[in-house]
C-alpha cells in the first residue's frame, strides 16, 4: 500500500459522496427550493444577513471549521492501525459530517437563520437550551485546555517555531490597522506577513540563539526549573502562563484588531499546508509502513474509542455552530447549502485524510511504528509530534530541508491552535455571561470577570499532572473528553434535524442513524472510561477526569431520553406561529 493510493481512494469516495449522496439528501430529504427566500435576503442588513456568492461562502465556512483538531485526532487514532482511522474519516465525512453540516445549515435557513441553541429551545424546550449551554461550556473548556497543551508542547519540542509564531501577532495587528484605517487590500499585506513569518522560520531554524528553548535555558531536560520542578515542567508552566495572558488580552479585543487578521494569515497557511502536503505526497510517493490493523494495540479497544478520538475530520458538533451561527445568515440561495455545508465537511475530511497519510508513512518499518505507538497513552502524547515529522518528510518532496519543514509545519499547527484558543476563550466568556443572566449572577456578566473565570479554569485544567510526571503531562488525557463533548453537540444537532424532518413527514433516517451511532459510541466510551479508568477502583484513578466524564455521561443519557421523548411525540412543544410556514 502506498500513500498516493490511500489519498486517491479517500478522494474518490468523497467525490462520490458529494456527487450522489449529498444530491440525494438535497433533493429527496431536505427538498431544497431555489425560490425559497433565504434569511440573507429576508433580513438583509449588511452586517449579519448578507447574500453571499456560494464559492466565497464556502471559502469562509471551510477556513472557519478547519483547524488543528482534524490533524491531531487522526494522528492519535492511527494507533489502532491506518485502516480503522481511514474508514471512520472517509465514511464519517460522507454519511455523518456532511449530512450534519449540511442539515444544520438548512435547518437554520428554514428558521430565520437562528442558531442551533435557539432551535433546541424551540424544538425541544427550555431545558434543552440550558443543557445545550452546559455542553458547549464543557466543549470550549476542553478546547482551551487541549489546545493550550498542544501549543506549549510544540513550543517545547520545536523551539524554532516560537519566534515566527510571536511575530505573527504584531503583523496581524499591523494588517488589521492597515486595512481598517487605510482601506488597503487584504491579500498583499497578509501574504507579506506570511512571507515574513516563514522567512523568520528559515532563519530561526538555522540560528541557535533565535530558538527560544526554555528547557535548554534551564540546563536541559535534567536541569532544575522553577519552584523545585523539573525543567520540562517549568517550561510548560511558563508557556501556559504566557498563553493564558495572551488569550486574556486577545479575546477581549475587538475581533477586527487581532483575531480576524490572524485568520487571514491562517487561511493562507491552510492553503499552503494542504498544497505542500498533497504535492509532497505526489512527488515522494511514500510507502505505508504502519500496519493496517495494529495487532499489538491491546490496552484500549478501538471500539468505541476510535469514534471519539477522531471527532473533527469525521464529524464535529462545532461545525453546526458555524453553519447555523454565521453561514446560514449569508446563504444566497437555499440550493447553495449543499455546496457550502456538505462541501465544507468534505474540505475538512481532505485535511484529516492527509494527516493520516503523513503519520502512517513516517516510519521506516512496522516495528518502528509499533515502538512509538506502544500504548494509547504514548499515541496521545506523541501523535502530534509524529504528524509534524511526517508532514516534514512529505515536504521534502518539494525540496524543503527537513529542519525548516518541521518548523513551518509546527508553525501552521500552532497558528491554527492559537486561533481556535482565542475564539473558544471568547465563546466561553459569552457562555459564562449568558449563564450569569440565566441564574441571576450579575457579576458573571461583566467581560473581565467572565474572561478571568474562563482563563483560570482552562489554565488549571491544562496543568493537570499524570501521576508524578509533573505539570501538563496529563493534558492528553483530556483529548477523549474533548472528542466526546464535540460528538454530543453533533448528536443534539442531528436530533434537531431529525425532529424537524419528522414533523415535516419526511424520511429522517439519514440523520437519525448517525445520531444513534454517535450517542451509542459516546455513552459507551464514557461509561468505559469513567468506570474502568478514572473511578476510584479503576486503572488510572483520577477524581477530576471522573467528575468531568460523569457529567458528560449524564448529559449524553439525558439527550438520548429527550430524543426518545421528542421523536415518540410524547413531548411536543407548540411551534411558534410566525414560523409555521418554515417548520
Amino acid at each position, binding site marked *: 500500500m502506498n500513500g498516493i493510493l490511500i489519498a486517491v481512494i479517500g478522494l474518490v469516495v468523497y467525490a462520490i459522496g458529494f456527487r450522489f449522496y449529498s444530491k440525494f439528501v438535497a433533493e429527496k430529504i431536505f427538498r431544497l427550493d431555489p425560490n425559497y427566500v433565504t434569511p440573507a435576503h429576508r433580513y438583509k*442588513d*449588511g*452586517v*449579519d444577513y*448578507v447574500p*453571499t*456568492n456560494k*464559492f*466565497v461562502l464556502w*471559502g*469562509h465556512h471551510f*477556513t472557519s471549521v478547519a483547524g488543528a483538531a482534524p490533524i491531531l485526532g487522526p494522528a492519535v487514532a492511527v494507533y489502532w492501525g491506518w485502516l480503522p482511522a481511514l474508514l471512520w474519516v472517509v465514511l464519517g465525512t460522507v454519511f455523518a459530517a456532511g449530512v450534519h453540516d449540511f442539515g444544520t445549515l438548512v435547518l437554520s435557513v428554514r428558521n430565520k437563520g437562528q442558531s442551533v441553541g435557539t432551535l433546541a429551545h424551540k424544538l425541544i424546550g427550555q431545558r434543552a437550551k440550558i443543557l445545550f449551554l452546559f455542553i458547549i461550556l464543557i466543549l470550549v473548556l476542553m478546547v482551551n485546555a487541549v489546545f493550550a497543551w498542544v501549543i506549549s508542547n510544540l513550543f517545547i519540542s520545536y523551539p524554532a517555531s516560537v519566534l515566527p509564531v510571536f511575530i505573527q501577532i504584531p503583523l496581524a495587528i499591523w494588517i488589521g490597522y492597515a*486595512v*481598517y484605517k487605510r482601506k488597503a*487590500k*487584504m*491579500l498583499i499585506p*497578509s501574504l507579506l506577513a506570511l512571507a515574513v513569518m516563514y522567512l523568520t522560520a528559515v532563519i530561526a531554524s538555522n540560528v541557535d540563539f533565535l530558538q527560544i528553548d526554555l528547557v535548554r535555558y534551564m540546563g536541559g531536560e535534567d536541569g532544575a526549573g522553577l519552584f523545585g520542578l523539573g525543567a520540562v515542567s517549568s517550561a510548560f508552566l511558563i508557556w501556559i502562563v504566557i498563553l493564558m495572558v495572551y488569550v486574556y488580552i486577545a479575546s477581549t479585543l*475587538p*475581533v*477586527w484588531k487581532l483575531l*480576524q487578521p490572524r*485568520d*487571514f494569515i491562517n*487561511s493562507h497557511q491552510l492553503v499552503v499546508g494542504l498544497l505542500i502536503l498533497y504535492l509532497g505526497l505526489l512527488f515522494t510517493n511514500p510507502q505505508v509502513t504502519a500496519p493496517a490493523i495494529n495487532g499489538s494495540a491491546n490496552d484500549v479497544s478501538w471500539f468505541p474509542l476510535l469514534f471519539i478520538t477522531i471527532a473533527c475530520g469525521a464529524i464535529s458538533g462545532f461545525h453546526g455552530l458555524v453553519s447555523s451561527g454565521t453561514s446560514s445568515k449569508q446563504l444566497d440561495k437555499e440550493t447553495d447549502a449543499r455546496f457550502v455545508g456538505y462541501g465544507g465537511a468534505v474540505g475538512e475530511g481532505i485535511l484529516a485524510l492527509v494527516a493520516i497519510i503523513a503519520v502512517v508513512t513516517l516510519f521506516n518499518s512496522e516495528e518502528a511504528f509499533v515502538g512509538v505507538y506502544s500504548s494509547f497513552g504514548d499515541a496521545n502524547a506523541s501523535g502530534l509530534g509524529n504528524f509534524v515529522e511526517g508532514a516534514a518528510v512529505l515536504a521534502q518532496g518539494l525540496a524543503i530541508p527537513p529542519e525548516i519543514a518541521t518548523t513551518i509545519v509546527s508553525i501552521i499547527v500552532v497558528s491554527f491552535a492559537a486561533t481556535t484558543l482565542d475564539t473558544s476563550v471568547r465563546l466561553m466568556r459569552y457562555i459564562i455571561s449568558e449563564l450569569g443572566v440565566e441564574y441571576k449572577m450579575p457579576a458573571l456578566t461583566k467581560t473581565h470577570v467572565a474572561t478571568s473565570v474562563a482563563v483560570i479554569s482552562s489554565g488549571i485544567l491544562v496543568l493537570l499532572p499524570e501521576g508524578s510526571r509533573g505539570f501538563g503531562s496529563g493534558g492528553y488525557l483530556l483529548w477523549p473528553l474533548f472528542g466526546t463533548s464535540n460528538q454530543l453537540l453533533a448528536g443534539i444537532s442531528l436530533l434537531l434535524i431529525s425532529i424537524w424532518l419528522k414533523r415535516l413527514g419526511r424520511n429522517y433516517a439519514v440523520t437519525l442513524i448517525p445520531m444513534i451511532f454517535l450517542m451509542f459510541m459516546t455513552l459507551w466510551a464514557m461509561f468505559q472510561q469513567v468506570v474502568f479508568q478514572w473511578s476510584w477502583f479503576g486503572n488510572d484513578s483520577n477524581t477530576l477526569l471522573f467528575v468531568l466524564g460523569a457529567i458528560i455521561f449524564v448529559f449524553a443519557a439525558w439527550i438520548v431520553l429527550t430524543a426518545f421523548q421528542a421523536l415518540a411525540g410524547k413531548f411536543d412543544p407548540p411551534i411558534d406561529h410566525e414560523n409555521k410556514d418554515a417548520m
Partner: protein
Amino acid sequence: MLDKVKKLIEYYEEVLSMPHRQEIARELRNEDDLFLLLLYSEMIGIPNPVYYYTLELYPYMIEKFHDWHLRMGMEKSPLTGIRCC
C-alpha cells in the same frame, strides 16, 4: 489563462474581506445605535437638552428606528411617539 488567475485572486480576496467588512459594519452599527440613544435619550427618561432639535430629524430616521427596535429584540415600537409599526 491570465483572466482565470485574476479571477482566482479576486475570489480569494473576497473570501478574506467578507468577514472583515461584516465586522466593521457591525462596529459602525453599534456606534450608530449609541448615537441614536444619545439623540433620543429623552424617550427613555434621560433628560436631553437638545431634544427639541433632534425631533426635527424624526421623518428622516423613522425607518432606521424601526430596524433598530427590531434589532434590540422589540417586535413593536417601544415608543408611542414614533409610529413605525
